[in-house]
């Protein structure tokens, strides 16, 4: 997640990030129109690569076999469609079902890509700060759990290590029963340890006035003019996309009959809006890179 530090979109207000991903993932789930899917894969893929650098290729290439498998499997389960390609196990294998499979697999890939970006951009602290004002108690709970999990893992490792160095604990030669027993011992020690720690945490919270007043929540992020502009763009573009969608511009049915709405006339508007919307993070990233380049060359 280090790379996201240099990403312009990640630096925007969490609300902007959140709104964008709701739009991108929401549309991604609903729309099966091939042109839109391709736009989704391109938009999501590019941004994913910008965020993850070379490591991103691994994940993207890893999706290829998944895409193929999902596509090929669908006709086996779904025999609707008019264009029979061949028969398999006595069942027709149809072109429509194959295309439908490709569309579903495409939706899947788009979602994975956007969720990958979501994870890198909307870190836990952004998420909690976003909802901190709405439900302060819940967001504090979330923050504490987020802190507890790595703590728990670290302590477990410490106990296991300590036991190993006095010749206790399950090794490679232990039987399953011994392993289970040892696991239980470690778990119970861990619980005791955590309980003791939570008493101190509780003390520390009360010592700092927890429960003496209505909690406020510290907002580390502030909405800037740039954030408002982006918000406006996101909302407008999404509105256009949805309006066009309601008008049938992105309808695609595969079975029993293949129908894909043509991208002509007014439908073009929806498609362009969708592409523009998906390119927001990428465009921002590139814009910032260029600006940086120019401002540096002036120095």
């Amino acid at each position, binding site marked *: 997640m280090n790379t996201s530090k240099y990403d312009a979109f990640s630096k925007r207000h969490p609300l902007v990030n959140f709104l964008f991903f709701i739009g991108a993932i929401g549309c991604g789930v609903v729309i099966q129109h091939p042109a839109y899917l391709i736009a989704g894969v391109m938009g999501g893929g590019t941004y994913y690569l910008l965020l993850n650098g070379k490591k991103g290729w691994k994940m993207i290439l890893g999706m290829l076999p998944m895409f193929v498998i999902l596509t090929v499997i669908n006709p086996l389960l779904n025999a609707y469609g008019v264009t029979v390609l061949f028969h398999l196990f006595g069942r027709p294998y149809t072109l429509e079902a194959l295309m439908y499979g490709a569309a579903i697999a495409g939706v899947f890939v788009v979602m994975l890509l956007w969720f990958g970006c979501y994870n890198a951009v909307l870190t*836990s*602290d952004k998420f909690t700060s976003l909802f901190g004002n709405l439900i302060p108690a819940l967001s*504090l709970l979330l*923050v*504490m759990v*987020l*802190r507890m999990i*790595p*703590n728990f893992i*670290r*302590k477990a490792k*410490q*106990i296991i*290590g*300590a*036991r*190993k*160095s*006095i*010749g*206790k604990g399950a*090794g490679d*030669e232990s039987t399953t029963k011994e392993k289970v027993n040892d696991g239980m*011992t*470690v778990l*119970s*020690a861990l619980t*005791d*340890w955590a309980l*003791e*720690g*939570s008493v*101190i*945490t509780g*003390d*520390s*919270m*009360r*010592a*700092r*006035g*927890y*429960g*003496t*007043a*209505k*909690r*406020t*929540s*510290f*907002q*580390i992020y502030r909405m800037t003019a740039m954030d408002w502009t982006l918000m406006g763009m996101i909302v407008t573009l999404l509105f256009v996309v949805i309006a066009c969608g309601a008008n049938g511009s992105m309808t695609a049915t595969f079975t029993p009959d293949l129908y894909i709405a043509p991208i002509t006339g007014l439908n073009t508007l929806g498609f362009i809006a969708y592409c523009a919307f998906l390119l927001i993070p990428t465009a921002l990233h590139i814009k910032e890179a260029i600006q940086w380049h120019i401002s540096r060359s002036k120095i």
Partner: protein
Amino acid sequence: MAHFEIKNLTFSYPTAKGKHSLEDVTLSIEKGEYVVLCGKSGSGKTTLLRHLKSVLAPHGKHSGEILFNDIPMDKVSQRDQSAKIGYVMQNPDDQIVTDKVWHELAFGLESLGTDQKTMRARVAEMACYFGIQDWFHRDVANLSGGQKQLLNLASIMAMQPEVLILDEPTSQLDPIAASDFLNTVRKINIELGTTVIITEHRMEDIFPYADRAIVMDSGRVIADDTPRNIGKLLYEQGNDMFAAMPTPVRVFYGAQGEGDCPLTVREGRNWLSKAFPEAPKVSTFPAEPLADEIENPALSMKELWFRYEKDSPDILRGVSAEVPAGSLYAIVGGNGAGKSTTLKAICGICKPYRGKVKVFGKRVEKYKSAELFKNCLSMLPQDPKSLFVKKTVREDLTEMCRNEQKIAEVAELCQVTALLDNHPYDLSGGEQQRAALAKVLLTEPKLLLLDEPTKGIDSFFKETFATILAQLKIQGITIVMVSHDVEFCAKYADMVSMFFDGQILTTDTPRRFFGSNSFYTTAANRMSRHVFQNAVTAENMIDLYKQNKEG
């Protein structure tokens, strides 16, 4: 007007069967004072401190009165207490509530319902004052112990308290982080006038700067005076707490010096210069024979290289050492230099990708795990708590060995017989350390590895610990110890090695090792190096001083 006024406070825990944890404590603490509270573990320091903040006050039978700014404590609202009385506890980790540094800084202010604008200003202020800007956005999990404790302090200071109460705040920190932390506390006291009440083991860093020292023993206040007078008083009473005094104080009284008692190394040097206007007749101990080739070393390491992950930097970069059988071998060095990793490599928990570890002449990989940890090698980890897995100390020891007589012997040796039926977590730091040692010793090791054994232990318990180690040595056990505690190593180790940059750079006897260092050395050596050549402990100095003055 006194800041805190404690009048005849007596307290007993419900389980203590009438035994008082605090008895008739009467104290007055003025605004802006820097007060250090000392006493052995279990003398009631923490119990007293916790009474100074209602939400933390233990349950039990109280009598007497505590006034805060002349108002009885129970009349001061919770909100006022939260904001005005800051309390820093021992464990840096468990005190932290949230997962981000900035959020932790704001936590107290959030609880008090402070508005956004004030909160922003205060958090920014604190981050600057404590030098936290650089790690403001970091995850708490990635901070060092010292940074965590500084964060705890800063998040309390953000509420702008009038009083800062610190309960052994540096016991879990390494010496450099500890000294940084204590300097910050002192800075707060001097620059902001915040009243400070602190308990500490590390007297050298506090004692000279405190306005007042209060000594407690079994729940009573036995002395309340300036630090200089306290030193004298403890010496005259022959109190155990004298061992915790800074080196200059101990040397001064031990050697029956004349003039004002020195508190700092600087004062100590001046005092010594005055005592010896001309070079003393005996300025050095007789030379120790140079170590021979070690025959049959208990442990030998040759060119160990290790890293945790494939593309992470090397932690061990060619560690080589030979440990003679039956000795106490200490490895000192900075934080994160790889000292603990070296111990793990010896145990086979970390597998070096190059190099050899031989334990009693046999390569460590050649041992079966059951063979290695039975009757051969055993390690006491840095946090003794990680060894306790049962409800009582006795059950924990029984996990290792069913022979009751053997358990009784080991418990006797480690002085935990009286503690056998307690829950391990109810013991003090020093007691936990000894109970954990007992558990480790039940594997009957011939080679014992200790990771920071003196961390968080007061000087009195350290001496107890040292006697136990001495007894183990008599039984022929070889001890390898990794430590930050130069004073302890200088006093008790047979050999000292300096660990730096992933390797062992020098190895020598403590006297030669610390005698030739001028920064990384003991307070006694820093204080006396212009007069004596190789006095590295208070005892060494007293010895030389007396030789010159008497004979």
